[in-house]
């Protein structure tokens, strides 16, 4: 299965056949410099001190690993634990990466930041980190997502960011990435691009994974403290794949731990209304990297669909693509309806309103846990809280629940 010496990406930023740096020449110097500066920063104790100090006192780490007793009893299967990334400042795992990259931008002397956002969680996290460090912040967001996530737009603006509506394509995350990349090409000399997931040209998939891997390292340590062993399974939702990659990375070498990435099946993977790039996509190149992509036979990128704006992306990070091919991570998909049911169940049994993104992971765990022994442990990455989604959920459930 996996080697105990998993050291990807290679020096060219490849994860097996995936990843790389498929970007315009204008950006090459920026991504090459970013890689050098990132490595220097990570080796610098003062950078590490700043990052860890802020993660502890500003973000609120470490986040709890909560034993979901009621849900476990309800399912009568494996013990279910929730890694509470929803309790981070700004309400999702995104702040781990935004803060890390904003510190990196500051260190590189770049006072301006551009970012894309889907559900708005990465936008809010980036706007927050920029406000904290006094950086100028510009966020591209699809018009469709602006409509779905108005409260997050307001939060970003309140935090001092400029939110720019993107009307091209499907007016969602994919198109916001296009526009953020265009802005970066044009303003590369004084601007850092805080990419929000484990995608884009090398070194972004590595940087975002590293900043998010705090999730998995904490989980590993906390689970051993609570149960005296490693969990049997770990489940996380996948759009671009940053919370999942951060959760999975520290477990890759632990061959006894089964890893599950859960994509959005939208209205169903046999319709065209889904975001299941691993299940239905083919390897291709978009936004600077080779990865699994939803595309037609002519290589045109297809629009993704999910009830959850954060999963509404037609690709998935290159490291996930590689982990699929080598069989280390199992990739599954969950429909909109199943995610909504899981959200309701977690609200009612545990008093936690999860993000729609995370609800996909929960929905899969609801299927998985009953097939396992009662001594087994399943950790679900609860990547974000559901406050941002209550309007969407209310519209779907009619407000009577």
């Amino acid at each position, binding site marked *: 299965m996996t080697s105990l010496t998993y050291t990807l990406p290679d020096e060219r930023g490849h994860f097996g056949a995936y990843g790389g740096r498929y970007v315009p020449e204008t950006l090459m110097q920026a991504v090459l410099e970013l890689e050098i500066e990132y490595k220097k920063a990570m080796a610098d104790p003062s950078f590490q001190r700043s990052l860890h100090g802020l993660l502890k006192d500003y973000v609120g780490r470490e986040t709890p690993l909560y034993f979901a007793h009621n849900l476990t009893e309800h399912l009568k299967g494996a013990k279910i634990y929730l890694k509470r990334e929803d309790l981070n400042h700004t309400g999702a795992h995104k702040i781990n990466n935004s803060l890390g990259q904003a510190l990196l931008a500051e260190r590189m002397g770049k006072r301006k930041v551009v970012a894309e956002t889907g559900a708005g969680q990465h936008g809010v996290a980036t706007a927050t980190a920029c406000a904290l460090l006094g950086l100028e912040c510009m966020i591209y967001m699809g018009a469709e997502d602006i409509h779905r996530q108005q409260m997050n737009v307001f939060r970003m603006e309140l935090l001092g960011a400029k939110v720019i509506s993107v009307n091209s394509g499907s007016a969602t995350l994919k198109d916001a990435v296009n526009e953020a990349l265009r802005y970066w090409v044009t303003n590369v000399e004084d601007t850092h691009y805080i990419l929000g997931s484990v995608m884009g040209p090398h070194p972004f998939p590595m940087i975002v994974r590293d900043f998010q891997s705090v999730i998995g390292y904490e989980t590993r340590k906390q689970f051993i403290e609570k149960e005296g062993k490693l969990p049997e399974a770990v489940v996380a939702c996948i759009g671009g794949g940053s919370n999942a990659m951060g959760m999975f990375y520290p477990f890759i070498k632990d061959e006894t731990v089964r890893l599950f990435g859960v994509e959005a099946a939208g209205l169903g993977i046999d319709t065209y209304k889904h975001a299941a790039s691993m299940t239905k996509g083919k390897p291709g*190149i978009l936004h600077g990297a080779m990865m699994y992509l939803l595309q037609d036979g002519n*290589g045109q990128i297809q629009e993704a669909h999910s009830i959850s704006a954060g999963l509404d992306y037609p690709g998935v990070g290159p490291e996930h693509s590689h982990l699929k091919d080598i069989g280390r991570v199992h990739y599954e998909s969950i429909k909109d309806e199943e995610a909504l049911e899981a959200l309701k169940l977690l609200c009612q049994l545990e008093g936690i309103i999860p993000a729609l993104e995370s609800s996909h992971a929960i929905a899969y765990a609801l299927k998985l846990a009953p097939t396992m022994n009662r001594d087994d442990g399943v950790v679900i990455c609860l990547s974000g809280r559901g406050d941002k989604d209550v309007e969407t959920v209310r519209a779907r459930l009619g407000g009577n629940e």
Partner: protein
Amino acid sequence: MTRIHKVMQELKNNNGKAFVPYVMAGDGGLQSLPERITFLEKAGATAIEIGIPFSDPVADGPVIQQAGLRALENGTTLKAVIQTIGEIRPIVHIPLIIMTYMNPILAYGIPKFIEDSFRAGVDGLILPDLPVEEEDIIAGHADKAGIEIIRLVSLTSPLERIHNIANRGKGFLYAVTVNGITGVRQGFNEQLLQHLKKVKNISNLPVLAGFGISTSTHVQEIIQYCDGVIVGSKIIELFNQGDLDGIVELINAVKTVKNSLKDL
């Protein structure tokens, strides 16, 4: 001698400068591509860059992006464009260069794409999302078929990198004239002109400047520092407006400038 090398050599011998217009294949229907190609050749184009539409063209500005979307709505595919090039090739003498992003080529299959392009008489490739670091994916196949990959250098490329790219280059070197995406701009600054001189000094290949060139004045200004220009967005606009005289006027702008480099 390749077709691109031949036309560049002829220009040099005749003290001339290159003009390479860009057309988006399938904008206005794929049936309009042959007539646009023959029109541009007759008007004096040195070579033609034929754009293949892609759903997510991050290096392009709104004009080319919209043209690409129109072409996609017309059902344009890479396969059909290669076929059309093959049909028009016997009566077109200047080089035909495909410009597209990597994904349509990957979906086509790289070896098959190169084989079909070779058979159709494609002379070169411009791939804006393929830096030299990643070009092994296609360069070997292209070299074997004699299809030249035109490498790009940008304002942000450091000296050593420009050397490296210029040394690997084939056909001509494409000097991107702005930090940014394709599209019409007001003018150029001195930094650009210095940059072009630098690239020109380094490169043994002809250096053609592109991105943001849209008026005869631009052409005449910039062409004093390079061997030719590539014009995209403006050509698309002029075709859409039916302003064929405007296209002829732009092409003629290169002919009034002698092939000597101006000192800054």
